[in-house]
Every structure is written in C-alpha cells, then in structure tokens.
C-alpha cells in the first residue's frame, strides 16, 4: 500500500530533477565544457549532473507542495489525480507547459550543435557541384550490371521469405505459451509465461543487424547468416504479436468448446485458432514485407544478397552501378509494399 502510493511521487521527483539538471547543464555548457578535455571527464560530469539533480528534486518537491503541477506530475500522477483542478489555464501559462517548451527548445539548439549542423556546408558551392555530379551518375544507372543485381535481389527476397516461413510455425506454437489467458495466472504456467515473455522481449529488442553480425561470425558471411538473423528477429516479433491476438480472443467460444469435454489442444484448435487465423496471416505478410527491407540492410554487415552488392559498389565509388541497385531495391520494396497492403485489405 505504502509502496504503491509512493511510486508516482518518486517518478515525478526523479523526472523533474533530471530535467532540471539537464537544462542547467545545457545552458551552462560553454562554461562546464570549456575544453574538449572537460567533455570527456565522465565522473566529473556525472557528479555535476547528479548534484544538480538533487537541487532539482528539492525544487520539484517545493513547487508541488505549493500546489503547482510540474511536468513530472503531469506525466506520472495516478489517473485519479489527473482531474482538472480549478479553472483550466492555457498550457503555455502553466509551469509544466513552460517546462516542456523550454526543454524542447534547448534540446533543439543543443542538438543542432551536436550534429554539427552547418548551413555553410549545405550551401558550399564546390560541394554542391561534386554532389550533383555524383547524383547525376546515380540517376544515370549502369544497366550493364542489371542481371547480377536481379540475381542478388532474388536472393534477398528468398532470404526474407524463408526466414519468415521458418519463423511462422515456431512463433505459432510459442504464441499460445506466451498468452496469459492460455497459461493461467498461477503456478508453473505463469512462471513459464513470464520467462518466455522476457526471452521474447529481449531477443526482439536486439536489432537484426546485430544478429547478422553474430551469425556472420558463426556460419560465415553470406545469405545464410542473413536468413538466420531475420528468422530470430521474426520468431520473437511474430510470437509477440500473435500472442497479443490470442490474448484478445473472445472467451465465449473457449467456454463453449471446453464444455463439450474437449482437451486443451482441441480447445485451442477449435475455439482460438479460427479467431486468430486472419490476423496471423495479415501480420505475417507484413512481416515478410519488412524482412525484405531489412534483408537489404543486413547485407551491409555480412548477410549477403543485394545489400552486399550495394556496399561493394559503394566502396568502389561506382555510383552508376549503385544507382542501378538502388532503383531495383526501390522497385521491389514498392511492389512488396503494395502487394502486402492489398492482400491484408483483401482478407480483412
């Protein structure tokens, strides 16, 4: 009980404190980071940040006590406290509104500096002419390599297709085990459910490009590594999405089938599967479409296919050939996109 009621307050305070520290450091950065060396002193800078955070936490507490709502309060207060209190003010006249505005503006300014944005570089005459020369080559594709490009593109599409196809049955089985309404809320079922969810979430958060690097070291550079990378990613993302469909099914048919004396497997097959088939197919096609796009990028890091070809020509500076590859990729992605949208609309 104590803990529950403390949560929002803690989150509010921490959020406000960090925002305060961030703003102060950003504004004072010319002083704090006066030298390149100062920028790299992690423990010194962290101390400044947390020191300022403590000041911020105090301010947040004081302001909240005075009945003024901070940005942290707006974001983290429990629902029942979010009710408007007193006469509504326009957002820019409130503390939280000003907090949000100032934070956004400061972030934009700092961001432009950090990304070394430069109008001068953008408008440099010499650079514009060399860039337009390269663009000219890019848009004058070297069609002579088209046969090779097509072979590699086909390889990439297959890579994505096989990865999806292998992932589907695995994800199908996992999806029921990752659904709360199947596994129950007690005992070993719940434990297994939780463990599986954690594994799926972790593996899903690892980008396929990272998997590709791992598998390229394991099975060697080439489309097989790329396929494995896409498959792992597809299994976890399909299973997650599928299990959400399973959790959303109507309980009525389940009860109806269970009441006939059906086994668990029969109940899943008769009461749940018909309810999730269409959303499964729809999401799977979307996944395949996504995989084709990802397969291209995965080629850059050793996944084979069209991506590998692209990076090879790019490193040689063969821009006309690169142009040809980019056009083929664009065409295939566009076709896949249209096809997947059409099929998903048709089976709705």
């Amino acid at each position: 009980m104590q803990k529950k009621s403390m949560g929002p307050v803690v989150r509010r305070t921490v959020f406000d404190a960090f925002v305060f520290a961030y703003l102060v450091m950003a504004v004072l950065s010319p002083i704090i980071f006066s030298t390149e060396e100062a920028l790299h002193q992690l423990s010194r800078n962290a101390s400044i940040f947390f020191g300022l955070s403590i000041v911020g936490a105090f301010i947040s507490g004081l302001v909240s006590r005075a009945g003024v709502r901070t940005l942290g309060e707006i974001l983290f207060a429990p629902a029942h406290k979010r009710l408007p209190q007193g006469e509504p003010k326009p957002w820019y006249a409130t503390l939280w509104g000003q907090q949000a505005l100032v934070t956004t503006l400061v972030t934009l300014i700092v961001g432009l500096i950090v990304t070394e944005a430069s109008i001068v570089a953008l408008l440099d005459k010499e650079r514009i002419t060399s860039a337009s020369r390269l663009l000219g080559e890019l848009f004058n594709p070297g069609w002579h390599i088209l046969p090779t490009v097509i072979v590699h593109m086909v390889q990439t599409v297959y890579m994505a297709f096989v990865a999806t196809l292998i992932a589907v049955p695995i994800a199908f089985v996992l999806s029921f085990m990752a659904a709360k309404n199947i596994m129950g809320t007690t005992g070993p079922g719940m434990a297994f459910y939780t463990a599986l969810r954690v594994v799926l979430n972790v593996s899903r958060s690892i980008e396929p490009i990272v998997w590709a690097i791992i598998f390229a070291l394991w099975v060697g550079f080439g489309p097989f590594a790329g396929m494995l990378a896409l498959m792992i990613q597809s299994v976890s993302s399909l299973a997650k999405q599928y299990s959400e469909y399973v959790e959303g099914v109507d309980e009525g048919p389940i009860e109806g089938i269970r009441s006939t004396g059906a086994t668990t497997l029969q109940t899943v097959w008769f009461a749940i599967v018909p309810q999730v088939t269409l959303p499964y197919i729809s999401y799977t096609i979307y996944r395949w479409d996504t995989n084709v796009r990802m397969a291209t990028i995965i080629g850059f890091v050793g996944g084979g296919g069209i991506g590998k070809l692209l990076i090879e020509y790019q490193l040689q500076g063969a821009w006309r050939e690169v142009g040809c590859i980019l056009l083929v990729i664009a065409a295939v992605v566009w076709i896949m996109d249209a096809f997947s949208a059409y099929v998903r609309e048709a089976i709705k």
Partner: protein
Amino acid sequence: MSASVKDSVKDSMTDTILSVRHLEKTYPNGMRALKGVSFDVKKGEFLVIIGLSGSGKSTLLRCLNRLHEPTGGQILFKGQDVTNIEGDEILKLRSRIGMIFQHFNLIPRHTVIGNVLSGSLSRTSTVRSLLGLWSREDREKAQSYLNLVGIGEKAYYRASQLSGGQQQRVAIARALTQAPDVLLADEPVASLDPATCHTVMDYLRKVNQELGLTIICNLHFLSLVRQYATRVIALKAGEIVYEGDPNSIDDAWFQRIYGEGAKEVHIN
C-alpha cells in the same frame, strides 16, 4: 427389512441423476458466490434456477460440469462423486453434461454443421479432430439434431450468418451431439427477443420431453419459469431460499427472492 422398501430406496437412487451437497464456491478474489447449496435433480426434470443478478446462478451451473472448481461440498453425478475427479475424468464428465450459454458461444467462422460436430470432440481422437475427420456416424447424428431443432437446411451456413435464435438452436444441437444425460442452460434466452425466446424454450421442452433429457436452466423471467419449469430453485446471495413448484411462487415469495418492493414484469 422387506424387499419392497429396499427396492424403493434403490429406485429413488437411480431416479436422482445429480445430487449437490453443501456446495461452496469462493472465487480467488474472496467473493463467496455459493454458500453451501444442496439440492437433488431427478432424471427427466426441467429444473429452473432463478435469482437476482449476482446471486450465483452461473457459478452454480459451471461448478456442476467443473468449468469452475468448487471450493467445498460435494457433487454426485449418477451416484459417482465428481467433486475431486481430475484430468480425463473431468473431460468425460463434461461430455456427459451438455451446456448452452446466453451468448451461444459458437465459433462464428465455422459452419453450422462444424459447430454441431464439435459436440463429438470428446469421443474423437485429437489427431482426427484436428484434421476434421469426423466419423460418419457423428456426421449423421449432427445433421439429425440440426433437423430436430428445425434448421437442418442451414448446415453449411457460417454460424455468424444466423440470427440469435437460430444460433441458440445450433448450440442446442451441439450439446445434443454429446449425447448427454443432463443439459445445463445459462440464461439461454436472455439475449433474444420475446418471440424467438419462446421458440428456443419450446425446443428445450421438446428435447426434455421427447429425448427425456434432464434440464437445469437459469432464467430471469418468472412468466417463462411458470410456463416451462417442472420445479424451481431460487438463489439469493449464494443460498437457496426457495425450492418447489413454480406456480406456488406468490407475491410474498417473489419479494423474498427478489427483494422488498420488487415487481414482476411479464414477457409474452
């Protein structure tokens, strides 16, 4: 002891198909939905359970076929104690007890006949059922029960294409395909209009009288109860407050069951 007394004891035992003793159900959240309910059900009865919303009617029915786990007391089904059976035994019990629901609980995307055939799941092996390889006997049975409830010609429609009343008749046919001894009906007409409601109740009476199927049915409207029930039990806050002839429920009893100041509404 004379033979005739023994016989009548044996008689009354075979007569009773279901015996509920001090049944308790407390949900995990602490809600005591049933507080020691006891009653007997005789073979061939049309027993109706009435009571306010929340009085525990649905809970009671779901305990009988172990869709919900009772937390105390005893249930005897055809003389066998089924309170603590487990696994396959529960599945077998459920197959002997058909059930229909307020919202029909069919599989909307399957055909009508497919829905009815799912009543034979418990006697079909898992592999055969997943492949849809129903036995010819079951197919014929399913079709004949569809005919019995008057929608034989709708066999190859999707269940979702049927009206509410027709869907409830499909549900009855599905339950009949189980070849059950008892049929549980949880407010089978609560989401139907008055006219359709009588059609469905008439079919329930038909299977009760023609097939001799014992029926235990939750209902909301007393007028329907008087028309169809052979006996009635009233639940109030998880306890039985009335048991007997539906026609003996007078105003005094009505107020006791539904609370002071309650007024009966009629449905025709």
